[in-house]
């Protein structure tokens, strides 16, 4: 069975997306991207130094990938929009992952600002992937604002705690007509598999791969787990049965 994954009409070769921060070296990042098979990789624009030659992180991303800049460092919508426009001016293309994070204690996003930035950037033709606290009403607002997918957090960034927002993710998957890409907090391949079993369209991982003892090995392990989880979802086992029960009154009133 063909299992096509599209975002904004573009066919994406892998449901495993990889972040490029925190790696112990540029080489280990390159190897991890290759081993992951990731088609979409995210890069913090704050890290990009166009004039640095081999010191420019972009020069270490293997060809054939969609490079999706993120707005890391933005604290509100205005800053996220500014960073996105700069990324586009710098030739980074139209994909943008919005991070609007006014809290450095927990790195939790601000949904209100994220929705605002999504609206502005979608109108400017960006393919917008907003990172947000999983909330159904806000997910719908993001969709209405023009998001190409939504990226709910599994757990706060860097915590490696797994899909702690499991119930909310399940609701997003069942209620939303947009790809749900679980981002942040996935510390082990089994967490990624779990997210995919719940019906996520894809996952994005960074820390768990970058800081492992063998980033390429861990990237491959995650890629396999994502495939396994996806296969399980398609096979209709476990998580899928839970979805079938979603017609029960618990989520039924939301329709």
């Amino acid at each position, binding site marked *: 069975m063909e299992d096509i994954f599209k975002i904004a009409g573009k066919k994406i070769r892998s449901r495993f997306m990889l972040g490029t*921060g*925190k*790696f*112990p*070296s*540029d080489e280990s990042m390159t190897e991890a991207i290759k081993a992951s098979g990731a088609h979409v990789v995210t890069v913090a*624009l*704050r*890290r*990009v*130094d166009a004039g*640095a030659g081999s*010191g420019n992180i972009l020069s270490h991303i293997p060809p054939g990938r969609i490079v999706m800049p993120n707005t890391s*460092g*933005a*604290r509100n919508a205005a*800053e996220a929009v*500014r*960073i996105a426009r*700069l990324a586009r001016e710098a030739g980074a293309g139209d994909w943008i992952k919005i991070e609007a994070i*006014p*809290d*450095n*204690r*927990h*790195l939790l996003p601000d949904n209100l600002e994220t929705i605002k930035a999504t609206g502005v950037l979608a109108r400017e033709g960006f393919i917008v992937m907003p990172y947000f606290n999983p909330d159904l009403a806000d997910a719908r607002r993001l969709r209405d604002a023009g998001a190409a997918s939504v990226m709910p957090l599994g757990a706060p960034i*860097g*915590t*490696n705690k797994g899909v702690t927002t499991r119930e909310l993710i399940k609701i997003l998957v069942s209620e939303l007509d947009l790809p749900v890409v679980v981002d942040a907090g996935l510390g082990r391949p089994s967490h990624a598999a779990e997210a995919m079993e719940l019906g996520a369209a894809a996952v994005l991982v960074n*820390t768990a791969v*970058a*800081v492992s003892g063998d980033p390429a090995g861990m990237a491959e392990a995650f890629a396999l787990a994502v495939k396994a989880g996806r296969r399980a979802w398609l096979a209709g086992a476990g998580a899928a049965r839970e979805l079938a029960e979603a017609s029960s009154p618990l989520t039924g009133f939301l329709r």
Partner: protein
Amino acid sequence: MSFYEVLRARAGRAAGLIASAAETDVLRALSEENPNEAAFRALLSPAAVPRLETMARRAGELTARHFGRTVSLYAPLYLGNYCENECVYCGFRHSGAMERRKLSYAEVEEEGRALADSGIRHALLLTGESRVQTPVKYIGACAGILKERFGSVSVEVYPLEAAEYAELVRAGADGLTLYQETYDETLYARLHRAGPKRDFRYRLDAPERACRGGMRAVGVGALLGLADFRREVFFAGLHADYLQRAYPAAEISVSLPRFRPQGVGFAPGARVSNRDLVQAMTALRLFLPRAGITVSTREPAALRRNLVGLGVTRMSAGSRTGVGGYAAEEKSPGQFSVADSSGVEEVKAMIRKRGFHPVMKDWQTF
């Protein structure tokens, strides 16, 4: 509310509470996911010394999770050494017989070019305290010149009003570093004999004013060696915690500068061993998992190498602490003598050898 109230409420008892922490307190602190203030005291206590290896492992793991296997690099750039203060331990103090100068804007440009050529992308601008010779307008103009070459331009200058910090932000600065020197108010009065710096509270509240003025990154710290390091690091950590809670959008960091000889014949009041420094760093990391921790070239290369992986997130490299030190040979004596004189490339190689990535650019003023 000000951190001064937090400090005053604890000033009398902190040293005693730290000293009396028991082994059980340390074990409890180590078992907690989010160590609180009491746990932080235990981690800084003499009772925690036998657990240093455990603390180091936890600190290393937490740092990797939140900052990755990376160390960001920066370098200081001294704009001027005019100073009205009389700090008994400082090479820039007012009564010191040294040539005083400040960089012209053309020299700032030249210094910036020389520093940027070394690969540094984060610059920290410093002056002595002289509102006459190096006024806010001048510092802002320098930041404006340098922001063209650097992803981040921070300042380490005399305490300012919130509106003045905002002025620097508009000019292109994005960060502030300001050490309280000592959190012991009585000792502070003895060490700072004359000049505007005598106002303990005005300095203490400056990082908060910087946050209000819109500075993105704000760093605090105590000059270790002036007083008992356990109490000093405790209050530096509480200061950072206070700022993080009050201004969650700001990136708060803590520096751990150890006293270095300044050629002024000052004998520090407390010895801070390498072991003490490691305890301070790892305790801070466990208490503040997401705070940046900075180690400068005040520390020798051999020690800096070993500190990578224990909690440090930012290091200076290739530092010159005299005015105009990059474009030419040192034109004036430095504020303190650098212990690690390695060049930027050597520091990068050292960090790589430790299995970490030297990050040259991690910000851009957007």
